[in-house]
């Protein structure tokens, strides 16, 4: 029907054109008349070219949040990615990164073949190798290091993702104890802080909240779609969003910006608690029933008055009091947002502890519009792994034995481990480094020191899709498939809704890229030729990804094929409702089973049982460097993506106009930024959206890899400037503890 109309219209258009030609011959007299014809318009606008062939549902991997996507594939070429309408996370939308997945897949800079270093490290000379040669090369080197230093001479680095398990298992079976994962580069201090106080990190009901307070959390630029959508809806529904941050992020722009002096957030939270208690605004019922140690807290925060906090935080006492009162009015529909990347300051864990305390005083837990514990995940079947050797050496730096009793030991800690390796102060030398899905050179504070650690290594292998900074310094790069070319383990999640989703190949791999499981299998087989393992390594990995997924799906009433067709599956019954904690049906996972204002666990390990504020060090005339991201970049992963890079081709340093004037810095001009450990030349962005005592650099630029042709030579690297500081309780790297000098170039 419609097609016919279009066709008829097209014919009309053609005949009209003939008609027009005739008129032209008749002369200008016809022109006036013809103007009216134009309004009718032609319709030959290539109808139906949007028949996007096959539509394959999958799961995004442009960041770590795994949204549902629908991939439109025409003749084996991925043409368009749309959000999956059936996925409760995306509801049909994706962010800029998700859209740009095509460009990550077809990036001209992608590594398509195994590359073995031909020149000096970092020189950029590579030779193409076959996979067999690559496996032998890796196995040779691993074998050599294991011969000389034992399996503990290996460092195993990777970041959380669905496929990480295979890479980790290889390390486990080889017998290395030295893992360096993502947590202490990101959120370890938040986890431990929340865990120590209420036994876990709660979710937030942003859509129904009346008052939302975020400490540095930049939810609208570091996406997780449901949160983003809920937050905006919450604001539209009348919630007040207060963002405490030294710079005005997009999140702060959508709410009330409280430009706090960096590293004094704890002073603010303590003062808020002070006001709540002093003015008798706290939720007595909640505090009585579900918390312990209130009296001690009352006594403790008595010293932290708003007037005192004003001096510390630069926030007027009046504002603090108002904030506390407004929260109390909105309570319990208050979200005290836990935040995510909490690698800020050396006191971070203690600061994070104050957040659930504040939440508890407001009674804003387990209630609509407040914080809550989410639905839990869909239980997947367990894969039946072979038994790994368990009698392994202790970590090189003794991370698991003493210094950080409260930290999650399996994740390791970068800052301390690096020192142990470089300075040879560890228990033994570490000489081999396997890196998967991680870019430590960009991710870890003090990049120059990471380079030093690389110098210590006899062998560095990077498994990556692009020549990242780290891959550029490696001895061998093994090209992995992108998320659009492989089947991954099933992912299960729970927010308000729990479901599972599948990531499956939508196109054939580019070049000779292989999945991580295939790569691991290859290395395992090559290792078997050199050493004997019990069980043999190739037996450990003797399965396909399909087998793995089938095992995961075994307990669920859905098979792999069906899931591949529909993308996600969610259980019919979502057993989740609020109030279990309030009714006493559930306990907090703390020793007392309640929210602990005073933590025995902390006291026992020599930490302050209640958060004690220490004023930050001041460095006059210098600025504190903070870092973060823009909405279209994930860490340092997709700055080289041409579509995303086009939005923001070069990063810049945010400088307050007053400071710029004082130093004679012009907007758009270049400045030299110096810290104690490094210097960076970078463009100035003079903006009132940042405090005078703070500067901000977007993370992920200033690559040393000439292989990243889009990105190379643009912007400056923040991690080069950052000093090696870490949170005292978790060894989570502290990114905001660096003071810099800025001079005009």
């Amino acid at each position, binding site marked *: 029907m419609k097609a016919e109309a279009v066709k008829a219209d097209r014919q009309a258009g053609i005949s009209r054109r003939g008609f027009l030609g005739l008129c032209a011959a008749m002369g200008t007299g016809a022109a006036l008349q013809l103007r009216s014809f134009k309004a009718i318009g032609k319709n030959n606008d290539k109808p139906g070219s949007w028949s996007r062939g096959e539509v394959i549902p999958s799961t995004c991997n442009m960041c770590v949040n795994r949204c549902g996507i629908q991939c439109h594939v025409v003749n084996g070429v991925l043409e368009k990615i749309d959000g999956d309408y059936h996925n409760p996370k995306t509801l049909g939308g994706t962010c800029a990164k998700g859209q740009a997945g095509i460009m990550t897949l077809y990036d001209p800079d992608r590594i398509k073949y195994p590359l073995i270093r031909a020149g000096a490290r970092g020189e950029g000379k590579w030779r193409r190798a076959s996979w067999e040669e690559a496996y032998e090369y890796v196995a040779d080197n691993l074998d050599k290091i294991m011969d000389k230093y034992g399996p503990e001479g290996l460092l195993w680095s990777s970041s959380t993702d669905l496929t990480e398990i295979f890479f980790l298992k290889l390390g486990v079976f080889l017998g290395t104890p030295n893992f360096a994962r993502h947590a202490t580069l990101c959120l370890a201090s938040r986890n431990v802080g929340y865990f120590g106080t209420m*036994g876990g990190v709660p979710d937030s009901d942003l859509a129904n909240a009346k008052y939302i307070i975020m400490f540095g959390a930049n939810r609208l630029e570091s996406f997780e779609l449901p949160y983003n959508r809920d937050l905006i809806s919450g604001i539209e529904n009348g919630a007040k969003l207060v963002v405490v941050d030294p710079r005005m992020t997009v999140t702060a722009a959508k709410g009330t910006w409280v430009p706090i002096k960096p590293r004094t957030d704890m002073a603010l939270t303590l003062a808020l608690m002070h006001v709540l208690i002093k003015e008798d605004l706290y939720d007595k019922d909640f505090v009585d029933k579900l918390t312990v140690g209130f009296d001690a807290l009352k006594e403790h925060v008595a010293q932290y008055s708003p007037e005192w906090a004003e001096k510390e935080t630069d926030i007027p006492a009046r504002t603090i009091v108002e904030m506390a009162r407004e929260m109390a009015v909105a309570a319990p529909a208050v979200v005290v947002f836990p935040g995510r990347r909490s690698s800020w300051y050396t006191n971070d864990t203690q600061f994070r502890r104050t957040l659930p305390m504040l939440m508890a005083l407001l009674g804003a837990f387990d209630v609509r519009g407040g914080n809550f514990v989410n639905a839990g995940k869909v239980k997947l079947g367990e894969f039946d792994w072979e*038994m790994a050797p*368990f*009698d392994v050496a202790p970590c090189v730096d003794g991370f698991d034995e003493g210094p950080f009793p*409260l930290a*999650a030991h399996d994740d390791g800690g970068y800052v301390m481990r690096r020192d142990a390796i470089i300075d040879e102060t560890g228990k033994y030398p570490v000489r081999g480094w396997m890196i998967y899905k991680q870019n430590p050179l960009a991710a870890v504070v003090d990049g120059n020191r990471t380079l030093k650690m690389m110098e210590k290594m006899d062998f560095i292998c990077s498994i990556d899709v692009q020549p990242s900074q780290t891959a550029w310094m490696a001895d061998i790069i093994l090209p992995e498939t992108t998320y659009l070319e492989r089947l991954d383990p099933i992912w299960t999640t729970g927010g308000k809704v729990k479901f599972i989703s599948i990531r499956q190949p939508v196109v054939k791999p580019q070049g000779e890229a292989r999945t991580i499981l295939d790569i691991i299998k290859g290395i395992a087989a090559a290792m078997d030729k050199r050493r004997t393992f019990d069980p043999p390594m190739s037996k450990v990995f003797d399965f396909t990804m399909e087998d793995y997924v089938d095992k995961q799906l075994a307990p669920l009433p859905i098979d792999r094929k069906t899931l591949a067709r529909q993308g996600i599956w969610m259980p019919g019954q979502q057993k989740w409702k609020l109030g279990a904690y309030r009714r006493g049906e559930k306990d907090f996972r703390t*020793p007392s*089973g309640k929210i602990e204002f005073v933590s025995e666990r902390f006291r026992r390990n020599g930490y302050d049982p209640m958060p004690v504020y220490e004023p930050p060090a001041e460095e006059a005339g210098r600025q504190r460097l903070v870092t973060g991201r823009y909405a279209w970049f994930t860490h340092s992963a997709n700055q080289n993506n041409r579509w995303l890079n086009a939005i923001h081709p070069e990063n810049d340093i945010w400088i307050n106009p007053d400071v710029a004037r004082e130093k004679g810095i012009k907007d758009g001009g270049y400045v030299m930024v110096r810290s104690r450990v490094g210097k960076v030349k970078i463009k100035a962005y003079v903006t009132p959206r940042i405090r005078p005592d703070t500067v901000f650099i977007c993370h992920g630029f200033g690559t040393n890899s000439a292989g990243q042709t889009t990105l190379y030579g643009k912007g400056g690297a923040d991690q080069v400037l950052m000093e090696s500081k870490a949170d005292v309780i978790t060894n989570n790297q502290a990114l905001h503890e660096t003071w810099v000098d800025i001079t005009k170039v």
Partner: protein
Amino acid sequence: MDSKRLLSGLILVAFLLGNAGISFAGDIKPNKKRGQVYFRMVCTVCHMQQAEKTIPPSSRTMKQWRAYFKADKHDVSGTTRSAVSYYMSRDYRVAIKDSNKAAKKFLKLSDEQINADVREFVIKGAKDSDTPASCN
């Protein structure tokens, strides 16, 4: 009444002494990692199959776990063997070795060693410990 209480007290003391004797007899060094593997591969798996419920170490306090091991009472309802230690014993491992890789792997280890390992793991992972552990 009194005698009953006395009796139970005596039994308790006996168990205590017995356990202590076992624990300290061979100068056993508990291996938490092995305990973790055994707990997850043997205890959790079976619990999931039989009762469809997990028994995370973090579900009890350290004190409760100590008491549990001392009491050595696995099940009050009587459907399974009553002693906790049975499930760490070589007999049990032999019984399930064909279906359980962990049991097979740890077949040669002494009962006491495994017992100490698991005990170490659950106590270190208890609710009020520094690093509470879940089942997986």
